[in-house]
């Protein structure tokens, strides 16, 4: 702050506090609802103070699930979401880092062609090719499988670009020194490039974990078997009709569980999260 203006400082805090409260409110309501009985929620207005059903509701969803719509246990869904999120995050990092390595550190015929082929995928988000991609997955027999949930989403131009960008900043002399030391390309990749890429990998991991965990349209299409539902899909499937028809206490408990892992990743890895967000958009 350049000059001391107590009123403006007060105003800034006031606006921020209002912002934080407004933004937190939906989640607070969700949390409260997840600790109430269904009757309490239905008695308009619902209480705005947590009830005593926390253990009961969460135990119910984790072990048995809701009784309407989807009846799968949310613990299975959490497992599916974890597999999907980790699969997408790690898969993307793995295939992107090696293809970026090839494109930056080798000269070979069709190098630029490959580069542009990968680049174009930026322009084809899953939403615009829903039906044909679904058909491909169905033809490959990958419906209701972890492979189907993860593999189609792990090709990523952004991750490849991020690594390419980073490799470009690694001094040429490091690779030359490694060559003089007798390291072949893969040895250089493993011993030098990979350790140097740690922060980029961490940043990318945070972003892609959240991306994978929060996928909606894709699992919605290819999972018809309850045992393959991800948490986000499970919530949607628990909503069977208009307001009063749903077990809101259980839905809200599931929503809390769906939000928790990615929120924790964001908060605990805040530094990487911010770095990842800013760099993948370059």
């Amino acid at each position, binding site marked *: 702050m350049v000059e001391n203006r107590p009123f403006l400082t007060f105003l800034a805090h006031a606006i921020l506090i209002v912002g934080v409260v407004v933004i937190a409110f939906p989640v607070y309501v969700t949390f409260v609802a997840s600790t109430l009985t269904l009757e309490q929620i239905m008695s308009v207005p619902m209480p705005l103070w947590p009830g005593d059903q926390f253990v009961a509701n969460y135990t119910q969803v984790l072990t048995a699930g809701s009784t309407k719509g989807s009846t799968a246990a949310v613990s299975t869904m959490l497992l599916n979401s974890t597999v999907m999120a980790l699969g997408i995050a790690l898969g993307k990092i793995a295939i992107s880092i090696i293809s970026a390595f090839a494109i930056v550190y080798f000269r070979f015929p069709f190098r630029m062609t*490959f580069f542009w082929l990968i680049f174009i995928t930026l322009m084809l988000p899953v939403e615009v*090719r829903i039906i044909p991609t679904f058909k491909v997955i169905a033809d490959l027999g990958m419906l209701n499988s972890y492979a189907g949930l993860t593999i*189609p989403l792990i090709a990523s131009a952004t991750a490849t670009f991020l690594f390419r960008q980073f490799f470009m900043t690694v001094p040429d002399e490091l690779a030359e020194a490694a060559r003089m030391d007798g390291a072949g390309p893969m040895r250089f990749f493993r011993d030098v490039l990979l350790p140097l890429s740690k922060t980029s990998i961490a940043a990318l991991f945070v972003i892609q974990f959240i991306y994978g965990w929060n996928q909606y349209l894709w699992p919605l299409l290819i999972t018809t078997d309850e045992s393959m539902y991800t948490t986000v899909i499970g919530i949607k499937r628990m909503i069977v009709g208009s307001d009063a028809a749903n077990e809101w206490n259980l839905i809200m408990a599931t929503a809390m569980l769906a939000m928790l892992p990615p929120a924790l990743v964001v908060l605990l890895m805040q530094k990487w999260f911010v770095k990842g967000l800013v760099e993948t958009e370059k």
Partner: protein
Amino acid sequence: MEKRVVFRSAWLPYALVAPQLAITFVFFFWPASQALWFSFQLQDAFGMHTQFVGLQNFGNLFKDSNYLDSFRTTAVFSVLVAGIGIALSLLLAVMADRVVRGAFAYKTLLIWPYAVAAAVAGVLYAFMFAPSIGIVSYVLKGWGVSWNWAIDGTDAMILVVMAAVWNQISYNFLFFLAGLQSIPRSLIEAAAIDGAGPGRRFWTIIFPLLSPTAFFLLVVNVVYAFFGTFGIIDATTQGGPATSTQILVYKVYHDGVKAADLGGSSAQSVILMAIVIALTVVQFRYIERKVNY
């Protein structure tokens, strides 16, 4: 920019790009070309007969008032999401940049909505604003506001815009905050010495310097409103009531999956692809300019 050092191997680079290329071909190019191919075909309801019809699907689309309505809905929706989202997050970012004490705490408290899935955000808002049991609906009723997004198109639009803005605000906030923090302190101090008060400093120094960030966020938010909000729509209004919140991407899904109109849905996909390509080009031209600057 090219590397000076290169490794030599006849097969290794191909092996390294192979996984990504294979996935790209199987799950990107093949489906995308299929979409293009289907968009020129007409299929009967049972999928028994297909017929090549050229541009007829596209022609039908642009004669279809539903489709044109969906375009209009998408435009309204994305303008609202981008406009409100950018304005609110800019306000919060400027305030967070101003406070010294607690800045990190505020930042932490403002960034986590990014972690919430769009569909979950939709469910949260659907619940709070549920016409009969929602806590916010109840308060609004107390104020004499009649609110029911299940039957009122405008209310439904407001609901999905709120959920979308809420979901995207942390992203915008972080970029604005980073932009603000990259403005050299000495510039602000020079302006203060020149006698510019806080308001004037904001509009004459800070805001112009932030405009590249704002433009970038505009593009990102439009892309988000076009595609990223599918989960919100599906978890709340499902495009309704009637088609008042049926944005383009939802219509592709609806026509293709629910109504099984392969040709029409594919033609819509192709049009959406064209829009994405246009937006990407805009974004890249912007980045190029930034680099040159």
